[in-house]
């Protein structure tokens, strides 16, 4: 049978490979956003610095010198000054990125996995299971996150692992709520109905139609949590509920440098500056990602 060719010519595609995926489009749009690009570069620098720290030819972060305490920024020996135990601030800050990033990112990653699973399940199944899950999540929402984090950390005890666990528990309900809401929206779309009409079972529908459309928005929301997580993690360390001395970690460093604030205010503020820069970069990147994903 002859092909029905009422179409004449179809509108020409721009000169790029046909069928470039959605994520490639997102990446392209992200590249065009100057703020997002700068934020990404900053994050990349800090992350690379944290990963490659041992090979960067820095001083030993644990070796201090009581003679050379609290040197200012720009000192001959210590480029960013030295802390209250005479340790080089620059190397402490770079090494500190490891723990701070770990304690900031891990809870979000774990919460993303846990929260998405629970939320997508609740959203897709609907009905009473949904009510049960979501009302349980609501209970957690009643607590302010800082309070909850501190309470959980206090109950579990100090330490990095416990801090990560407690922050994961704090963030999972938030991710669950977003996951459930997005899944509920997608579930009623025509193409999901069309998939059901094709005879697909729920697992196939979730895998092919729901996940691809739902994970994106959840992911963006999760990235916006990273900045919060870093601050909370630093806060827990500041309170002594997270990492313990002599580990370099920005929140902990803020605590131990507290007393030096009248002597070397700039040095004492440096860890805070790192937290701020990293956290806001994640935030801006997350915003840029959201805008890049919004285009239909």
């Amino acid at each position, binding site marked *: 049978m002859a092909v*029905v060719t009422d179409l004449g010519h179809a509108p020409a595609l721009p000169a790029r490979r046909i069928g470039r995926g959605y994520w490639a489009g997102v990446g392209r749009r992200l590249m065009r956003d100057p703020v997002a690009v700068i934020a990404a570069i900053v994050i990349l620098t800090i992350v690379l610095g944290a990963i490659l720290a041992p090979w960067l030819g820095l001083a030993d972060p644990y070796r201090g010198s009581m003679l050379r305490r609290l040197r200012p920024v720009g000192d001959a020996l210590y480029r960013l000054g030295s802390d209250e135990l005479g340790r080089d601030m620059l190397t402490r800050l770079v090494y500190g990125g490891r723990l701070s990033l770990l304690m900031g990112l891990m809870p979000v990653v774990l919460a993303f996995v846990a929260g998405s699973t629970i939320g997508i399940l609740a959203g897709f199944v609907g009905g009473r299971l949904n009510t049960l899950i979501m009302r349980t999540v609501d209970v957690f929402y009643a607590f302010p996150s800082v309070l909850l984090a501190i309470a959980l950390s206090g109950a579990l005890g100090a330490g990095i692992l416990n801090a990560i666990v407690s922050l994961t528990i704090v963030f999972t309900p938030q991710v669950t709520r977003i996951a459930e809401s997005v899944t509920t929206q997608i579930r009623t779309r025509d193409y999901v109905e*069309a998939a059901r009409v094709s*005879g697909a079972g729920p697992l196939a529908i979730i895998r092919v139609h729901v996940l691809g459309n739902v994970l994106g928005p959840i992911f963006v929301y999760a990235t916006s949590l990273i900045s919060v997580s870093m601050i909370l993690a630093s806060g827990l360390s500041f309170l002594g509920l997270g990492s313990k001395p002599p580990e370099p970690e920005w929140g902990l460093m803020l605590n131990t440098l507290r007393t030096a604030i009248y002597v070397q205010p700039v040095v004492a503020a440096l860890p805070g500056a790192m937290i701020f820069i990293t956290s806001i970069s994640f935030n801006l990147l997350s915003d840029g990602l959201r805008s890049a994903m919004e285009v239909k």
Partner: protein
Amino acid sequence: MDQLRTDIASRDRGGPAQPLLAVRDLVKHFGGRRAWGGAKAGARRGAVRAVDGVSFDVAKGETLGIVGESGCGKSTVARLIMQIIAADAGEVVFDGEAVGTRALDLTTYRREVQMVFQDSYASLNPRLTVEDTVAFGPRVHGLARRAAIARAHDLISRVGLDPARFAARYPHELSGGQRQRVNIARALALQPRLLILDEAVSALDKSIEAQVLNLLVDLKAAFGLTYMFISHDLNVVRFMSDRVMVMYLGKVAEVGACDVILRDPRHPYTAALLASMPSMDPDRRTTEAPLFGDPPNPIDPPSGCRFHTRCKLAAPVCAATAPPLADIGAAHRVACLMATPGSGHPQAAPEAA
């Protein structure tokens, strides 16, 4: 192509005389509260009575057009037949077998009946390419990936799109008409015998609408399909359909051959719908609106004949008695007391002796 037509024809069971789809007394109410006692125990009060006792047949190889305004229930009927929502009462029989029973389970039924939706954009998963969308149905039913993609390419070309250029595109890279063609290809991927088109061309530009209508006509002839064509546009229904069913507020008002009904309507509502079409003659414009007011709310439909509140020919008996769907000629049925002998309407024939 002939293989596809043979596949479809081989699944025929009852022969040409048996209707492909027979619907009896379909009822669907939405929402409302359950009444606790009294005569209406179990029924819901304040429910939207979207479909309230609809019966019709669809013969093999024909196109049944369904027209009606908002609130008439035509989209709900489509969804009930597709088994997207469960009916409150009534039965759907496909080629002699009741749907949902052991004779015809839902999975098999899904390969026989498919649907094309109105919103071409919302019907396509924005993350899947055209070929993946079309191949999804066959894959779910067990076809291997390569064979499914091959079938998808075949169908994509049949709906007028060049697979080399369109198979790997995403929905946002297509125009409205192209998207609707993809929807049609997707619906045909499972080789259904019955295709339900729910306002499938309503959202398209007029020039594209004509193209897609032509395509539907061609596909129907090529594959030996049967169509249920739902639309609010009488012109389009007239072009596409062999028979037409007019619905009003959840019930069938009139059903019969297309040219008979549209040339000589027996139900006042059908006549009003026809008269409401804008005139194409600048010298003979419409001077009076055939009906006043909006279609009433299906939550609290009028008693007796549901149309009596807007009918110019209504008599007192119309408010008291709901007219049955009566035969008045060759496969022409009307739900109007004027056509029911002995109903008590001044224009009705007296009871046949």
